[in-house]
């Protein structure tokens, strides 16, 4: 039996590639430990370090408190990126 090579096609993603708008800003959520990463975020402010304003910090008592559910919920609801720091 001869394999009809012509019939094998590259699998295609159902999603269509989209142009990224020039002014697009990723919406990012950060999960930060109260004692280190949250303190570091404070320190960034104290040192007047500049970074893009599109990140919001959720304070956790420890990064160990981070639950898969939080990440899944964030992505499910369309977040562009999650930053876990601790």
């Amino acid at each position: 039996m001869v394999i009809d090579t012509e019939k094998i096609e590259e699998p295609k993603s159902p999603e269509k590639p989209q142009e990224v708008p020039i002014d697009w800003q990723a919406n990012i959520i950060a999960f930060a430990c109260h004692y280190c990463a949250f303190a570091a975020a404070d320190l960034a402010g104290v040192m007047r370090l500049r970074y893009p304003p599109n990140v919001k910090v959720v304070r956790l008592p420890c990064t160990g408190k981070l639950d898969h559910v939080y990440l899944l919920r964030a992505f499910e609801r369309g977040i562009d990126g999650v930053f876990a720091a601790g």
Partner: protein
Amino acid sequence: MTRITPKQENKDSIGSVLVVGSGIGGMQAALDLANSGLMVHMINDEPSIGGTMSRLDKTFPTGDCAMCMISPRMVESSRHHNIKMHTLAKVVKVSGHEGNFTATIEQKARYVDPERCTGCGACEPECPTKVINIFNLGLDKRKAIYALFPQAVPNTRAIDPVHCLYLTKNVCRKCEKVCEAKAINFADEDQLIDLQVGSIILTPGLKTYQPEIRQELGYGKLKNVVTALQFERLLSASGPCSGTIARPSDGGHPKRLAWVQCVGSRNAHNGNPWCSSVCCMYAAKQSIIAKEHDNEVQSTVFYMELRAFGKDFDKYIEKAKNDAGVIYKRAMIAEIVEDPETKNLLIHSVGEDGRSVKEEFDMVILSIGFEPHNDAAEFAKIFGIAADEHGFAQTSKLRPVDTSRKGIYVAGTYQGPKDIPETVIQGSGAAAEAMALLGDRRGTEVEEVVLPEETDIEGEESRIGVMVCHCGTNIAGTVDVKKVAEMAAKEPGVAHSETIIYACAPDGQQRIRDLIKEKNLNRVVVASCTPRTHAALFQDTIREVGLNKFLFELADIREQCSWCHMHDNENATHKAIQIVNMNIAKTKLLVPVTSASVGVTHNALVVGGGIAGMRASLSLAEQGYGVHLVERADMLGGLLRNVRTNLEGDDVQAFLADVIQRVINHPAITVHLGTTVEKVDGYVGNFQTTLTNREIVSHGALLIASGGEEYKPIEYGYGQSDNIITQRELETLLAGKGPENDKCYVMIQCVGSREEPNNYCSRICCQDALKNSIAIKEKAPDAQVVVIYRDMRAYGLKEDYYRRARDLGVLFLLYTPDEKPQVDVAGDKVKVTLPGKVLGMEMAIDADYLVLSTGLRPQPDGDEFAKKFKLTCNIDGFLLEAHVKLRPVDFPSEGFFLAGLAHAPKNLEETISQSLAAAGRVGALLSNDKLTVSGVISKHNRNICMSCLACVKKCPFGAPFIDVDGRVSHNEVKCTGCGICAGVCPAKAYQVNYFRDDQLLAMVDSVTDMT
């Protein structure tokens, strides 16, 4: 070991302390004493507490707003149930003795009833009399009825009797008519009050030099010449020009700024002979902040010597030079001349090449120095204490906070010029001395606080109040706070929202309390600064009106928004709205949390048997606590064993021998020699520590005084000749065969310090060099002594010894790190060559002894040591304190404290102050019979737990355990609330109080809603 009541000689001693002065040092002493169960009377001659620090704009190195740091302390002092404040008051007479003093207080009439005054300020616009505003150092005017500054504590107005029309001319009374609270009381009179106290702590603070005396600098005549303290007010958001630096002559924004250092300091002829210790650093700070205000600012600092001697100070100067582009010029200023047209200022100075230079500036800031408080001379008489030749309170370097009169202690700038952390340290240190004196009188004069019953909010709809703080311009300058409040009002569950100038100030706190009652709020969100510093304050505030502490959330829109998105107002405002709304979403789901309390083991474990550890142990034992002192060597004494005298000539070895003897003999101190700590278990109040000798000790607090070591140099041919020695070896040599008249001693400073890889100042080496130079010249006046230095850091009153060394004929020659002296060993002689700046040629000195001023290093195994206690070190390997300015001897981990060289290089006096401070902080903690455990702990639901043991395996604190029935139980006392158990539990049987899954998911939902 149980708590031992100290022996008391005076049976009539009283469990209360008078703190005279309520700047940052006075407040620190008062709060420590009050927390240890002693009653405190805090008096102050101004209408508000706060002192000099309340006048500062920001503090270095963090650039924190000074008011934001001091405001919570002021509020805490005024709310503490063991502190009674007496403002507009001064002491006129003191009688009695240690343990039992009677102090007569003259309380000036305030003419405003503090009980009635709401601080609304309605009276001020009505008052017709304008008075020079002393708080803003004459930069603007205030009214005759006034609050010292917007965040004043107590937040009541006072009437200035010297300027009030009614009190001087019997007309007006306009304030009385407009005051709805009926608080104006013109019948008020001065009063004399007698207070019975066991001890007195003096913290009257400082006066600044009057620069008019130096006419060549033009202060008082040239409008654009201001003092550094005036410049602080110009920088301050709550200052006379709301934080936009305005030139006094025309209100324009100055671009070219110059600082002139040492104005009124280091000059016995028309100023003060001492170094004021702080001006080098505040000039660097001001120049950095000025650059932050306006990127076009170009700063120049004219200085004599850069005295950046403290922990991480040199790094801050580097930051000023490299990041803020500050130009440092080593020059003395001959004259400042004004351009009559532009009012710009011309500075005449002599450059390093010896030529005269003229430069033009828009504004000149005079770095004025510190002097003893105005009434210092009278003060000494009233309290019956000795003053030194300059008018500062006289203390011994070995007992830095004790005055000449027993039972009276001193802290802060009245003891000598010093900065904020050192003032705070002495505040705690003086408190420790008073605690040691009055240990058995704790709790005898204080009353217990009664908080109102907590309101039951179960089943109630959420009624959240949202307060969006301006923080002066810190937030409102970048974030549209009004819009944030408006958007918050639309969120579900929000019953009220508004903006507030300073939420943390007393009027802000009162507004929150009032709103809770008025609007029947059952939850509160404050949008201001970080919860790490301010949440506890607001939690206490809402608890006072019956709301559970955990019905509160702080939305951080300053550190995490306005400060890092400056000049991007639109996006910052958008982000602030998101931050506030996500916290509202969480707050809507908050429920009351009850906090448990645990007992306290009244013992301390002190790690390190050097002078810091021993002095702290003695203080703690005198306060009435048991001490375990652990030292890894087989004898006590540490580095001090190598030191014979200090700069001031005290016999250090006799002092050390006495301290060692007292430690060994004290029944409450158990010394463990040849031992270190193996493992620390437990939590604040209840630690169990295993020592390397397998002994397990129980203690409530842990004090790290693990010390440092002296640097053994590899530079400048050390080891190649017997004539190349260190300062410490020279000290031994001088004590032995003594100095010789025909010899030449050459000293090189900063050996192994202030350059990579040890780029910090070791602080003690300049003092060592001066000490040994003076010792040589006093005994052998014909001996030649040359000190080759980078900056002689003879800070504070040590300047006297720098001058003395020069008077004795010691030669001081400057070198720069890029042109170091060269050393060649030639037989018995050591040839030292260096480029001579003034001569323009190379200089060579034939030295008989080359003495290397080597610095201090952290312990070589410091990193490993820090890890054992889960502590962090700075880049140089010294342990990092909780807060550089206001918590200098605390670690961030509760129950852990710090003293001595482990913190940073410092001399004996400073080490003793710091160890007393740490003992005071430990004592205040150990005085509690119970500590309330944080309510943020994990709650375990046994009904849905499958006992899979995931939590038991993962918990770092051993809180979950297998119970007798074979299933998992949870020991909440061990729980720290980290929530690792909740993260790993497949059944979701754990929920962390205040960080429940539904609360955190609400935040996630809120963030994702906005896109």
